[in-house]
């Protein structure tokens, strides 16, 4: 017959053992997992910048899409060429759109064309 005390003691032993095992298993893991505090800091910084300026990140994303569509009528731009950021470096905060220009790819003269020109 198993008394209440016995099960209690058994439970304690199991508890300590699993705790030890847990320690052994989890301690090396900690070194490999990415620390989460830096992720928290980065996410907060971005979220608070938008909060403080009364903007939604999704709104800025769709604004970027629309900018690209509008500019594409005149320029060769793609979504990945456009960055829209909140600039807090000077005076009142500004929403800054920066458009990377694509270098023109001039068609290489063919050998035939080159000889003709000569």
């Amino acid at each position: 017959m198993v008394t209440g005390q016995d099960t209690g003691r058994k439970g304690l032993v199991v508890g300590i053992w699993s705790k030890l095992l847990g320690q052994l298993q989890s301690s090396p893991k900690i070194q490999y997992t990415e620390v989460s505090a830096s992720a928290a800091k980065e996410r907060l910084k971005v979220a608070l910048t938008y909060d403080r300026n009364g903007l939604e990140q999704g709104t800025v994303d769709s604004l970027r899409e629309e900018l690209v569509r509008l500019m594409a009528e005149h320029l060769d731009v793609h979504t990945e060429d456009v960055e829209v950021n909140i600039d807090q470096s000077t005076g009142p905060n500004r929403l800054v759109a920066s458009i990377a220009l694509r270098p023109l790819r001039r068609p290489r003269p063919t050998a035939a064309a080159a000889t003709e020109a000569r």
Partner: protein
Amino acid sequence: MAGRVITVTSGKGGVGKTTFSANVSAALAALGKKTVAVDTDVGLRNLDIVMGLENRIVYDLVDVVEGRCRVQKAVIRDKRIDTLHLLPAAQTRDKTAVTPESMEKICAELREMFDFTIIDSPAGIERGFQNAVVGADEIVVITTPHVSAIRDADRVIGLVEAAEKQQISLVVNRLQPDMVRRGDMLDIPDMLEILSIPPLGIIPEDESIVTSSNKGELATRMPRSVAGQAYKNIARRILGEDVPFMSLESSESLLQWLKRMLKI
């Protein structure tokens, strides 16, 4: 007398406004300052039960606002620390029973009666929050190292800065030093950088907060409570003393542990 009125607020609920209000009030009172803790969470009052004064309420804040009694009559005197008092909130009404104008008037009265008036704000940024901050000279924003609490703290700081010219300071509650060391919890410098207001105190995660509030006792009156010590340090900083921030490397050093074991 021209006392100081300090409002404790956070935006987010459950970060420790009530525990802070109760313990810092008790610590200020224990330092000989005539102090009143005011619960402005009308409809969801809790400061009374945390302070262990829930069975002594006769009149409340709304009774004062609606003219059924003078503020002196609604204030309860704590029997453990005779300089400690509580002005409880009403439980069966809602936030609209109090207006910012009436709170300003009550704060002006309390300022004449007490060295310190500590106002416990409800969660949120609506009427209850406005009631709590309108009559204050200083604002303490309390947060935990969680992204949700920090974001809400930032919102509250923005609202206070936009509306008033009150002095604002930051308290970080429930810090877990071992998690900070592993890089899994935001550290104090990170939070100060993000929120950019001066620090008033850091309170480590501590089980004695649960056990003391279970009994209606105050952690500041428990000699071994680390959080209680942090609250006492904050009270002294409020009084202008230059108290260094607690070393959070370990909550108790080996030497302190030995001393405690040997009772020296």
